[in-house]
């Protein structure tokens, strides 16, 4: 039986005890104000009993901890499975495995005709009904991590600068020097435009979960469900969805992967400059 029912009955019992005391004890023993106070406690516990329907998860920690910062859980919210193709969460002694499926749709409405647009909307409507198990479809827009790209551009600039310096020293082939200078200007322009604007990327994916008493049980169930979802998505859109593995999953789970650190520091610098100006 659900633990919540015991919480309800517990609070109701306390409420009833206070009420019995308020009503049962004669006025000669307990004066009326004290009886009203007992009634007040009874009604408070009655309201708390009702609130436990949806708020048992915070009420019990509040009663136990008596602090302003209530700890509902201090463990990691999930862990990556050993096969690195799912995240695993423990809840009420059961394992929940969640598999993420990439849906590679790269069509834009601007390049669709009227009939194609209607068909696309129909496909989306059909997509949400492919599974009888709860499945979550997500369109995620995140800031691209351009660190590696910017580093590549910087390396290219360094190489071009060295090449230019060497040519200047030897002092021959002016035409080639001009070509290298042109290349250098191009890389610098690309670097400037890349680092001055944020680049966003939109991706689509689905996630599906399964429970199990053992990690491998939950995992194999989730993978089985994912395979069924993949065939449904593939048949609907004519694309080849795939299970997301490794650290790529973090992009869909952790908030810091939505906004890479380099972007944050750039943003903070810009804001500080604006404030100074």
């Amino acid at each position: 039986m659900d633990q919540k029912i015991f919480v309800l009955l517990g609070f109701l019992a306390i409420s009833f005890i206070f009420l019995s005391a308020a009503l049962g004890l004669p006025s000669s023993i307990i004066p009326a104000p004290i009886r009203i106070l007992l009634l007040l406690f009874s009604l408070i516990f009655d309201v708390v009993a009702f609130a436990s329907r949806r708020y048992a998860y915070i009420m019990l920690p509040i009663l136990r901890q008596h602090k302003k910062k209530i700890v509902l859980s201090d463990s990691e919210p999930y862990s990556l499975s050993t096969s690195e193709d799912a995240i695993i969460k423990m809840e009420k002694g059961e394992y929940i495995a969640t598999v993420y499926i990439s849906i590679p749709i790269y069509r834009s409405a601007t390049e669709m005709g009227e009939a194609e647009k209607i068909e696309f909307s129909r496909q989306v409507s059909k997509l949400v009904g492919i599974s009888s198990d709860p499945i979550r479809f997500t369109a995620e827009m995140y800031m691209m991590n351009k660190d590696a790209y910017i580093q590549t551009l910087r390396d290219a600039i360094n190489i071009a600068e060295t090449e230019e310096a060497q040519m200047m020293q030897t002092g021959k082939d002016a035409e080639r020097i001009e070509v290298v200078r042109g290349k250098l200007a191009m890389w610098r322009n690309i670097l400037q435009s890349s680092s001055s604007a944020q680049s966003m990327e939109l991706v689509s994916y689905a996630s599906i979960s399964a429970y199990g008493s053992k990690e491998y049980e939950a995992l194999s169930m989730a993978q089985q469900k994912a395979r069924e979802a993949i065939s449904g998505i593939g048949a609907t859109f004519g694309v080849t969805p795939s299970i997301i593995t490794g650290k790529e999953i973090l992009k869909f789970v952790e908030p810091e992967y939505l906004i890479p650190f380099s972007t944050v520091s750039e943003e903070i610098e810009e804001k500080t400059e604006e404030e100074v100006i």
Partner: protein
Amino acid sequence: MDETDIVYISLSLIIILIVFGTASSFGKGWSIIAVLLAFLALILILALNWIDFVIVPMFTKMFGMSFQAAKDYTIQKGQDSIIKNVNGLYYATGFVTGNLFSYTFKEEDIEADVEGKMMTAPENWERAVMSLGFPFKFHVIAVGKDVQKIRDEIEGKRSYQEFQLSQALQSEKASSETAITEIKRKISIYQARLDRISAGEKPIAAIMYFETTAVGVSEKAAEDALALQIKQLQIAMSSLNLHIVRVVGRELYTLFKFNFGLPLTYSDLASEFSQEG
């Protein structure tokens, strides 16, 4: 209101009814106070049943209570955002409902109108997404429902409307033209739903919501940036005619938990959500 809600409300009201029935035993003058207290408790219980997402965050804000939902994740005292601290940077995540149902499925009366909406939907979506310069996710949690049960339910509703129509047409007092048109419109909506099920479309239940993350050097900065992003999201999505409401309270915690594991069945999913949005 589901069966569990009815059980909770009935059990809680027993105490209040006892107080109303025995208030006179508190003596002259005090009985009025007892009735008033019971009346207040009754109002509070009813309010908790329908607007708990207003009352509970108000309570936690008043007492300055925050909740640690998992390691590094904190639900703020207003219960409208969840903050992750990563190396001194704060990532605030908030949720807003974004129910597309009203957009695509509610107004099924005129087939051509639906087609028109389906045609403009991809373009409107793209335009809205392109106008946003911050990370966000749009989630659709879908679960297939029992086809036969839904079919029986719709047939029952259609039969009732047909009965209403025949009564309206046969009644001696001429029913207004508007009332008859309204009944006919409802019949055609139910028929359209039955036709869609007959054509192989699966009835589904779906929860749709946006999740957005903002970053800041302090909790306050991150929360302010998040509030701004949510406003921008509301403006951008206004072209899609979405019902957008910021999620607060227990539903925020539920949606946060969905990032690491989805519920298994439709009833599990439905029990998590009630009035909000």
